[in-house]
């Protein structure tokens, strides 16, 4: 696939369709892959990479890239296309400056997940069918691929590309994932347990803003939390309240717009399962206002920007689940 992508990119560069290519660039190890813009065939040969470790969602970069001169070729995985489509819907990307090639994704191996299995000192990593072979400072190890994948890939919502100019490989389908299982589990806890759970998680937040800055839905020119005039600007989550506030408001601001790409949880240095906040909103929206997948189509109104006269009353939350 990688070879094919490089050839196609070269061809599109050569015929002038595009003048840049955004993709993934190899790092020092197999897993430290950086999103990068390539402008020449040589650069592509030297560094372009696509494999089971290329996890970053490139769609957000296109906000800036599409505003530049000329057209850029973007390789997008199925879940990236949802983000891309949502960004188009919000007029954040200049569509005619982007040439999208959809590329297949079989789920990405996550180095942190591998490390959490006790494999450390990883110098190289290679997918061999369903097995991931890892070379470490301390010898060779192997791990099953599905044990090496992050939650977001294990519960992949769709292998279908919702927007593209060209597709490589077979088109996949929308999947029936179990992505709400954990949300449900939390819902079934008592409020005390839930409170304890979230305190345990959110108290680790260091307010590095990685979740926000990587999020393809967070595209404000200036975030309310950075804007002193907003009255709620905060920098370091000084009090536990501020941790809650930041994550509640952030989740609320992306509610109905979050495509559940899972980047927030991927980049969190503290391994906070932030996607569980977004998924809660998605689940509520699905249950209360009808199934809605952000980014799935260009026209439907985001659920928080529309209504029906028959919508549930807020008291529904008192009724739901009794005294859970």
């Amino acid at each position: 696939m990688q070879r094919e992508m490089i050839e196609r990119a070269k061809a599109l560069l050569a015929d002038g369709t595009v003048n840049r290519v955004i993709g993934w660039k190899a790092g020092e190890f197999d897993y430290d892959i950086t999103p990068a813009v390539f402008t020449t065939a040589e650069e592509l040969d030297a560094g372009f990479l696509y494999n089971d470790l290329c996890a970053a969602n490139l769609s957000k970069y296109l906000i800036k890239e599409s505003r530049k001169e000329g057209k850029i070729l973007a390789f997008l995985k199925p879940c990236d296309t949802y983000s891309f489509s949502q960004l188009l819907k919000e007029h954040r990307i200049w569509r005619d400056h982007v040439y999208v090639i959809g590329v297949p994704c079989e789920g990405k191996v996550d180095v942190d997940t591998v490390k959490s299995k006790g494999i450390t000192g990883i110098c190289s990593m290679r997918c061999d069918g369903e097995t991931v072979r890892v070379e470490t400072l301390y010898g060779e190890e192997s791990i099953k691929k599905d044990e090496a994948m992050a939650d977001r890939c294990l519960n992949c919502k769709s292998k279908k590309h919702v927007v593209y100019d060209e597709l490589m490989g077979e088109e996949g389908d929308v999947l029936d994932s179990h992505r709400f299982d954990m949300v449900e589990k939390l819902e079934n806890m008592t409020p005390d347990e839930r409170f304890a759970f979230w305190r345990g998680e959110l108290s680790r937040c260091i307010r590095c803003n990685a979740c926000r800055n990587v999020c393809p839905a967070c595209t404000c020119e200036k975030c309310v939390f950075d804007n002193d005039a907003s009255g709620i600007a905060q920098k370091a989550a000084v009090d536990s309240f501020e941790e809650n506030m930041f994550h509640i408001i952030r989740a609320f601001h992306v509610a109905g717009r979050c495509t559940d790409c899972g980047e927030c949880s991927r980049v969190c240095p503290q391994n906070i399962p932030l996607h569980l906040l977004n998924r809660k909103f998605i689940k509520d929206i699905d249950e209360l206002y009808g199934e809605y997948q952000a980014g799935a189509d260009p026209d439907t109104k985001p659920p928080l920007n529309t209504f029906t006269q028959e919508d549930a009353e807020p008291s529904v939350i008192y009724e739901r689940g009794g005294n859970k």
Partner: protein
Amino acid sequence: MQVNNSEFKPKIVAFCCNWCSYAGADLAGTNRLNYPADVKIIRVPCSCRVNPMFILRAFQRGADGVILCGCHPGDCHYTTGNYYTRRRMTLLFSMLDYLGIEKERTRVEWVSAAEGAKFAATMNDFVETVTKLGENKRLEDLRCKEK
């Protein structure tokens, strides 16, 4: 330490839309319908003006309960405002509940300009509920607590 609930005076912030609920609150006053002084009303043009930030801000600053009152669905002065409110607040409150914060501390109630009695009754009920819950601990900002 056991909180003595009979002495606990909750702080309640009530956001009322200018056209229905604020008028309903006025009517409660005109009819001398008593409700606890712990309830303080903030006038907003429409319930849809209430940003989730305001609600969290109130909790941060020491509110023990926040109630939002608007026109009945379908009667919004601006036609559609309270429909948005309804969705926004349903989701917000559900999220607070999900985080383990007592859901009884937040409420949305539709009160028309004619429902002075309902306004007073709602406030009495809400204050009672929040009083039972006691002080807001789960969504407090320790810095804002009087030392």
